[in-house]
């Protein structure tokens, strides 16, 4: 079987600070995501899962190791072509939208940036696709609810028509009922557009809903890579994963 990998990460180390103040947020992480696959990064706060995502997106300059996206090795700088392929959705829909741009501006800017044409029609369709409708087109972020904002953030990420979405806790800032809506939306979008997802979450339920495989992280290291199936059945090998599962089940009760 030769399914090409959308993302390959090998021996990725990411650090902040330098000299004696250097701290390694991610230590020699290795994983790969097949094209069209959905991969989760789980672990508690500070385990380095978001940092991996930011390193892939080119938002953290201090890293070593190898990262490959769609067969192309990544360097220090990301090309515009990279961002045409890979887009990111942030955790906080309140902070991640430009406060002074209408939805229309946010989306058209992203499209213009990547040289798309027929922007007017594209925006209308994109808003339909994320379940907002064109009535939201000329609103500002402060006029929207959290769920609506996250839909706009997803639409913005989809605007350049990428193949890969990096999702940084896309639902953790939202109400539970809204969380489900956004998760279903993400699942639908992935099916319709054949997207590859890498999603960070501390919520095993969310990962179980959206992903096929997941890396469990602790203190910057990947403890083990598991299938969602084995998470469900409890067939995991590491104590830490078992501990994480147990606390997830306990909090669900």
């Amino acid at each position, binding site marked *: 079987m030769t399914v090409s990998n959308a993302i390959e990460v090998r021996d990725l180390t990411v650090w902040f600070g330098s000299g004696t103040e250097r701290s390694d947020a991610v230590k020699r992480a290795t994983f790969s995501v097949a094209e069209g696959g959905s991969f989760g990064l789980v672990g508690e706060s500070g385990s380095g899962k978001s940092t991996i995502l*930011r390193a892939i*997106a*080119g*938002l953290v300059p201090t890293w070593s190791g190898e990262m490959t996206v769609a067969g192309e090795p990544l360097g220090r700088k*990301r090309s*515009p072509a*990279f*961002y*045409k392929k890979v*887009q*990111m959705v*942030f*955790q*906080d829909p309140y*902070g*991640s*939208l*430009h*406060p*002074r741009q*209408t939805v229309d501006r946010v989306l058209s*800017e*992203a499209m213009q*940036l*990547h040289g798309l044409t027929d922007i007017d029609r594209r925006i209308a369709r994109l808003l339909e696709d994320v379940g907002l409708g064109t009535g939201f087109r000329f609103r*500002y972020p*402060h006029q929207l609810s959290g769920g609506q904002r996250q839909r706009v*953030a997803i639409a*913005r990420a989809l605007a*350049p028509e990428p193949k890969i979405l*990096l999702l940084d806790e896309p639902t953790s800032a939202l109400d539970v009922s809204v969380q489900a809506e956004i998760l279903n939306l993400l699942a639908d979008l992935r099916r319709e557009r054949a997207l590859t997802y890498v999603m960070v979450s501390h919520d095993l339920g969310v990962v179980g809903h959206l992903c096929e495989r997941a890396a469990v992280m602790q203190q910057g290291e990947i403890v083990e890579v598991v299938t969602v199936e084995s998470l469900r059945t409890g067939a995991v090998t590491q104590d830490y994963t078992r501990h994480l599962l147990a606390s997830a089940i306990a909090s669900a009760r």
Partner: protein
Amino acid sequence: MLTYLLRRLILVLPVAFGVSVICFLLVQIAPGDPLTAIMPVDATAEEQSAMRAAYGLDKPLPVQYAIWIGNLVQGDMGKSIATGRPVAAEVFGAVQNSLLLAVSAAVIAFPIGIFLGFLAGYFRDIWIDRAVTAVSIAGVSVPNYWLGIVLVIIFSVNLGWLPSMGAGPGGSSEWQWNWLHMRHLILPAVTLAVVPIGIVARTVRALAGDILTQDFVQALYAKGMSRADVLRHVARNAAATALSVMGLQLGYLLGGSILIETVFNWPGSGFLLSNAIFQRDLPLLQGTILVLALFFVAMNLIVDVAQAAIDPRIQRT
């Protein structure tokens, strides 16, 4: 937007009324009799009361206010007790000179302040940031009248490059756009610019630093935007607050340059004001304070409207 503008304009009226009442009363409750300044020491009581009646100072306060405000709306601010010239002419001549000085200082200060602030905000917590912070703290802390005197000693007395006094050759107060006059503007404008450079730089540093750490800036990078374009967005987001700080600074520059105008003998409103105070020239004092205060009100209005135009989050209704 138009209704917002109208509403703001209507709101200015009570503020202007309050300002006029305070201007009028402030001068009335100040100790000292203006007549002592112009009457001979041996003037009789009849002569004093005749003079009082001539200036309308014998009437009750509300009546005096009504007469004053009535004349005011017709453009008549009374006559200066000291010089006998119409207050309006004196004040507007002086305000023009002050405005010239204030705007010149702003033209020097704001671009420098914005540039330094942006630099410090972008290169936060490294030596560039510390250097800018040191410069801006020094700028805010140094007493500018002292700095003015130091600059005079260096550039006028020792080097002899620039004149130290007045707004033109031979102490003329008639401004003209030529080098002979503009030489006179340089030292006071630079001196006056030092404080706002510090304030604007610190404000912009805090704003830029704050905005740069926000998620939406990361999102702009993740969208694939170039560094220059991201910085353009940061600047636009900092603009509204920076603008309001700069607007108020311009107001302070206009009204707060008394010391600088005195140091440099600049024939502006501050200079006029200090003369009016020492001569107990009531009408002149009232007129000058009123015009400066109304200028501040107008400045605030402009800043508010500009802010609402820039920032969609500010309610415009």
